[in-house]
């Protein structure tokens, strides 16, 4: 949430490169290719990411009307993850191991048997639960070459950056003091200095404090 309503905490990215001529068709195809696909209990993936409709996070039916808003491309970045509490997994695994040893008249389990049991228990628990869902708005202002992403978590931002670059084949630069500086009208000397300038000493000449 964020682009249409609610909290305005976001990370700004600058887009590098130009839009291809037939960007609408191309991007719609790329978005559909990387649309969100729900996790299943059978799959080994613990986490998955993909694009969803910005206003309807359960929908992946993309068309120009719900992706392109005048000069903006708006999408939801959905990340689902299985979160099975470790204590619950441990308890179920212990039960399953005990039962397996009785059934097979065994006193010890091999590593292979343990891993196999763990997989089966995890699958059973996954079938009884639903993954944790997180949907983060993304709004790309095409002419300004700016992307606003409604999260400031560095892990999520890195994941998003990689996913955006994979989808649109354009590079993203996260805003920070150095990258902001590169967007301005700085001359050659200033650009050189931007890369080499060192921190100021704000303490020099400041009188000491009397306690």
């Amino acid at each position, binding site marked *: 949430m964020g682009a*249409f309503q609610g909290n*305005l905490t976001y990370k700004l990215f600058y887009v590098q490169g130009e839009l291809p001529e037939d960007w609408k068709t191309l991007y719609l195809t790329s978005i559909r290719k990387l649309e969100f696909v729900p996790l299943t209990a059978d799959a080994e993936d613990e986490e998955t990411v993909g694009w969803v409709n910005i206003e309807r996070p359960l929908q992946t039916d993309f068309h120009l009307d719900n992706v392109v808003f005048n000069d903006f491309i708006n999408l939801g970045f959905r990340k689902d993850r299985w979160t099975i509490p470790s204590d619950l997994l441990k308890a179920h695994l212990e039960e399953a191991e005990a039962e397996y040893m009785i059934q097979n008249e065994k006193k010890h389990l091999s590593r292979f048997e343990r891993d196999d049991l763990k997989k089966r228990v995890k699958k059973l628990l996954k079938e009884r639960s639903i993954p944790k869902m997180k949907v983060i708005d993304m709004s790309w202002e095409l002419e300004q070459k700016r992307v606003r992403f409604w999260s400031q978590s560095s892990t999520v931002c890195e994941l998003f950056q990689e996913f955006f670059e994979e989808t649109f084949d354009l590079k993203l630069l996260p805003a*920070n003091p150095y990258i*902001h500086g590169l967007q301005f*009208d700085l001359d050659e000397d200033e650009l050189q200095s931007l890369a080499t300038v060192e*921190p100021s000493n*704000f303490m*020099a000449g400041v009188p000491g404090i009397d306690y």
Partner: protein
Amino acid sequence: MDLLDLINSQRFLGPEFLMWLWFKCDCFDGLLDVEGHGKVEVVFDDAMTLEAYMAETERSDLKGGAPAFSPEAKTALRHGKRVSKAKMRIVKEGREWSFTLKAENLDIASAKIPAVLSRDDDERFYERMYLLEELEEILENLYEEFLHIRLASRWGELVLPAMHKWIGMDDLATPEHYPVF
């Protein structure tokens, strides 16, 4: 140096920008000329965090009242701490934005924009983005002004000495404390 190294090594410019902005706001009572926007009121609001440079565990969180005018904030500066986060307000032509500016990446958080009038979802979105853009532009123009000063010799010759004096002062600053270029 590759881009990632440059990004990391030059992050100190964020806290230095906030320090300079605080100094300038103190000198001009928050009323600043912003390129392309005319007179804009920039206020350091009721929350500010100062951290020791290179020792982020030493932190002063000042909340309530007007921390930018408090003796505690000046003491923290005298101990070598720098602003890492500040809650701010910007007022332009009667419209007000409030937000937290995080110095390290110059990220905007918890922004409140002037009232959005549109009722239609899409129109509301365009209005919200327009208002965010306006805020970003004001902040970026201030940061650009800072960089033009910071990357020139006048920083070391005029601005930094004036800031040293300001950090050592207990009284409020006046326009005369801001160097003339």
